[in-house]
């Protein structure tokens, strides 16, 4: 099992295929990624900001506080005590069970996503310390095929949960998935939802503490499985979270969607998340929760 340095991912996610994000947020979409190099435009306030300042600020907009994309490797870096992450099941690789082909073969898509992100699939899992408390940790990266869950993500999470159960570790899963269950692996992706949820049922029965952290975006089959099953559910501010994509809903009901619909604050108001937690506070909040729950 590989330990240590993770390749840093500096690429922004390619959301051009994303049914949910294709028009969300729409204000500055045309400009997305255009000011390259030193400058970066915030998706929320539209201000052009210094890339380095953003990076030093955990990819949070220094002007408006918008929580921008963060790679799985960076999330682990910000969440865990330095040098404590040990990756589990990093040797799992996606197969192509359906020999899926749309405009591009899935097998090729996987290779190009791997090159672009430095990840083997959309999830990183393993163990590490949060302010000296050992945890089992999983992170999905919304840059890898929209952070969608196929067989590898499902299997890595199931193994993570089973190990957390065996070793009596608190479990933290950070979700970032606009894609939900991955289309390219068809029914097998759908069934990962049941598989991971079943593993969480056992973890729950063993008295485990599962903290689910929702980030922008957490949608579809990921929202409708492990992401919603936390004993405690935290969300970063303004994250898009929901079952059906805003576009699908708009096309179905033929009405404009209310302001702030499916954002973290909307979910909090409707009773589905425990706390909205800023990225900078996440580590401390998780440590505190672990202490409250006596884990």
């Amino acid at each position, binding site marked *: 099992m590989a330990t240590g340095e993770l390749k840093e991912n500096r690429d922004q996610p390619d959301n051009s295929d994303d049914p949910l994000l294709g028009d969300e947020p729409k204000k500055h979409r045309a400009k997305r990624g255009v000011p390259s190099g030193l400058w970066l435009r915030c998706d929320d306030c539209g201000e052009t900001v210094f890339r380095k300042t953003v990076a030093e600020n955990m990819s949070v907009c220094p002007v408006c506080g918008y929580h921008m994309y963060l790679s799985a490797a960076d999330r682990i870096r910000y969440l865990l005590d330095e040098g404590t992450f040990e990756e589990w099941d990093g040797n*799992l690789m*996606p*197969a192509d069970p359906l020999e899926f082909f749309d405009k591009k073969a899935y097998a090729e898509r996987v290779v190009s996503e791997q090159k672009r992100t430095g990840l083997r699939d959309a999830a990183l899992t393993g163990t590490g310390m949060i302010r000296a408390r050992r945890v089992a940790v999983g992170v999905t990266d919304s840059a890898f095929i929209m952070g969608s869950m196929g067989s590898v993500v499902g299997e890595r999470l199931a193994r993570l949960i089973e190990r957390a159960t065996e070793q009596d570790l608190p479990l933290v899963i950070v979700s970032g998935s606009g894609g939900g269950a991955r289309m390219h692996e068809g029914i097998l992706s759908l069934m990962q939802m*049941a598989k991971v*949820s079943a593993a969480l049922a056992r973890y729950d029965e063993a008295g485990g503490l599962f903290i689910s952290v929702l980030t922008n975006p957490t949608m579809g*089959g990921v929202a409708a499985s492990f992401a919603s099953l936390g004993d405690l559910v935290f969300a970063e501010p303004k994250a898009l979270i929901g*079952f059906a994509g805003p576009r699908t809903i708009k096309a179905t009901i033929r009405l404009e969607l209310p302001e702030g619909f499916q954002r973290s604050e909307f979910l909090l108001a409707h009773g589905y998340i425990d706390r909205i937690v800023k990225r900078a506070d996440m580590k401390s909040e998780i440590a505190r929760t672990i202490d409250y729950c006596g884990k």
Partner: protein
Amino acid sequence: MANTSYQLDFEAPLRDLQERIYQLETDDQDSASARDELRAARKALLDKTRDVYSHLDEWQTVRVARHPDRPMFTDYVDLICDEFVELHGDKFFGDDRALRTGFAKIDEFKVMMVGHHKGKTLKERNECYFGCAHPEGYRKAMLKMKKAAKYGLPIICMIDTPGAYPGIGAEERGQAQVIAESMLEMSRLETPIICVVIGEGGSGGALGIGVGDRVAVLEFSYYSVISPEGCAGILWKSHDYAENAAKALKLTSRHLERLGAIDDVIEEPTGGAHRDHYQMAARLKMYLVKTLRELTELPPDELVAQRYEKFRKIGMYLEEAASV
């Protein structure tokens, strides 16, 4: 055979033969040659039906699965159950008509029936949102299934939905949350659960009542991570490519079986369930009774352990030898 008003294009040769038979039937049948001709036409229709239905492609299968004359939840309840006592409401928000639950008797078994219903008339279809359930539907199903486990009743889930309803109210009332919880709860209910996809197995809305000891699919049903239209819209940027998407998604019963995602395929009558509700119901009943007999033999903890292992094994990936 039902004289259906809804027509599928690939059934055109069958319609022509059917019309020929009607013609012959209304004609004078006194002569031996007329009777021979009628017999031959009937044989030709049967052969042709068999032929067409043995070569359905993925998209044609989706269209058969959506056929408005295909038997629905209430048809199977009428044809299979000796009694059905509907239980309404989620004790929280409402009574979703797209997902129905109730006590039922099937041969020697008392069970809890759970099923999506699409609706028969336009009025009913509107009430049922065409089989797209809201969170209250899944909450109701979860509640009744827990009661079933409490009182030792096996559960039968009939899946027939294009997907869970995508709307503002559905999101406000926690569609993602209830589907997730429903799967989690079903995975540990200490009573036998049989799930059968009777028509459309649309994504999370299907899986929300789809975690069972046996998952079966009727031959011309489909079960998919996303609707072909939805998939086409995302990957081909147009719903017009639904046929391509259906093919790529490998969503037919035989593919599902090969991929290890389901346990059983229940064969349909010649020409599909919509042609012969009685025959289809009889086959489904036989499957249910046989499976109930098997599953009720197992102690509940053994049942739950096997159910876990069954779902735990689903998935295909490569595993490199671990580097040290």
